[in-house]
């Protein structure tokens, strides 16, 4: 039951995301671009942080940023 509910929830989220993409992408392309772009910018910044950790672990002896 728990697995079913999880799938149902994810399926619902997918449908909502698709409807959002179709409606807003058609009616308000720049709103859609903002939503997608903001998520992308956050992910890139977050990836930069994670990459920093990886680099620090590789070059821990250098001690320079």
């Amino acid at each position, binding site marked *: 039951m728990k697995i079913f509910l999880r799938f149902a929830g994810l399926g619902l989220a997918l449908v909502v995301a698709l409807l959002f993409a179709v409606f807003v992408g058609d*009616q*308000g*392309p*720049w*709103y859609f*671009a*903002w939503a997608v*772009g*903001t998520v*992308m*910018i*956050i*992910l*890139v*910044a*977050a*990836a*930069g*942080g*994670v*990459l*920093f*950790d990886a*680099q*620090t672990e590789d*070059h*821990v002896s*250098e*001690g*320079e*940023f």
Partner: protein
Amino acid sequence: MDLINPAVVDLSRFQFALTALYHFMFVPLTLGLTFMLAAMETVYVVTGKQVYKDMALFWGKLFGINFALGVATGLTMEFEFGTNWSMYSRFFGDMFGTPLAIEGLMAFFMESTFVGLMFFGWDRLSKPVHLAITYLVALGSNLSALWILVANASMNMPNGAHFDPETLRMTFDSFVGVVFNPDAQAKFVHTSVAGYVAASMFVMGISAFYLLRKEHREFAARSFRMAALFGIFSTVAVITLGDVLGRLDYEHQPTKIAAIEGLWHTSKPPYEPWIIAALPNDAKQESSYEIGVPFVLTPLITHSFTTPITGMIELEDAAAPRIESGIAAVSALRRYEEGHQAADLEMFHAHQNDMGYGLLASRHAPNQDVTAIPPEQIQSVVEQTKPDILPNVFVTFWSFRLMVFLGVFFFVLFAMASYLSLKNQLERNRLFLKICMWAIPLPILATEFGWITAEAGRQPWTVFERLPTFMSASTHSVSYMLFSLAGFTVLYSIFIAVELYLMFKFARLGPEAHGQHDHGADADHLSVVAH
């Protein structure tokens, strides 16, 4: 005797500009910092590393100072529409009030509720729930900006409404038309992402300060990295949306785009230069000391190499028949108000698209009443009104250029910052770190110049081609306006002083002073690197 005192209108404009510009010193940071906090907290939730929680806490504290003072300066502005711009509010209240009410009831309440949970929920909520709250704060603050800019866009491009001659007001037709107004879309994304740039520079600059002083180095280097990457992508987005807004202005507000480009006469494609610097003279309607780059203006504005851009003097000439038609519209409307004759209504409908130009002409009519213009003087009034259709070219031209120059500077700075951070070469470039530190206020200035370009460029209208600014203000006395202006100046200056004092204080103290560097296992690792 004239009903409208130009001094009161000018003071009302000055007061609104002052309060808006003060308020806008706080807004960009709020828009951008919330999403940056969300990015930091996302890494914390995914990796579990304490330093990212420290980052979210420390930058969150600085966000909190800015948020509180931003709210204080924003609240008064909503009342200002009623107190100082009552004629505008009566004419356009249905259109303007709806998004403003949604902003208050939905976005601001959402933002304010969740901001409390964000600050005080760290120990009471699970990690994923707190992260969701942080995203909701970010979404709420940006939705708040969305509704304000939807309202503003309806002044620049009044979609989804029509003028009702029975009530003498603009009537709301289509919610979708208002919300999905192309100007609202482009302006919201441009403004929101400009906020991301401001927040990136803020975090990057303060991090540079720590790196220069060799304090909190890991904390600062991580923050710097995330801010640099956040900033470079945001700057590209700001420039892209700036181009979209320019294109919209070219299509819908030709006087604004001509003033922005200092284009007195219709351009000659494809040679027409993009003027880098000049001294536009509004009185003489010419510019001196022009320095330009040839072949750039036409593709920049029209996205083609052959389309001419109409100059301001030609736009003035083209406005003459509209002014005359507008005088006919306003005269018919006045007669219809008094007699309710079908012929007057029919006459009004025939000329209603030019009504705004008729209202603009009333400034030069006897007793500011276009029905009192003798037929033989109509052409004289039209000639006097023609120059009024242009905004202040010097202000529009230079505010736009300062914004653009700063935007290009940010692009270069963030690109270098990203490169040096990714290469772990920041601390070797002390001059670069100093530039980052001193650049903290520049994105705020750029957004101020952007706002001036948008608002000064829309003049002489509050509602583009519908309602002139000089007919929009309340009928206060000059002394009342001076008193309230002085009050706002003093109060808001105190707010700015408090903000700067608190920001400097907490930024100097740094993250450790708040007892946030309790890293546990991570602390040993950090100490190895620091040595």
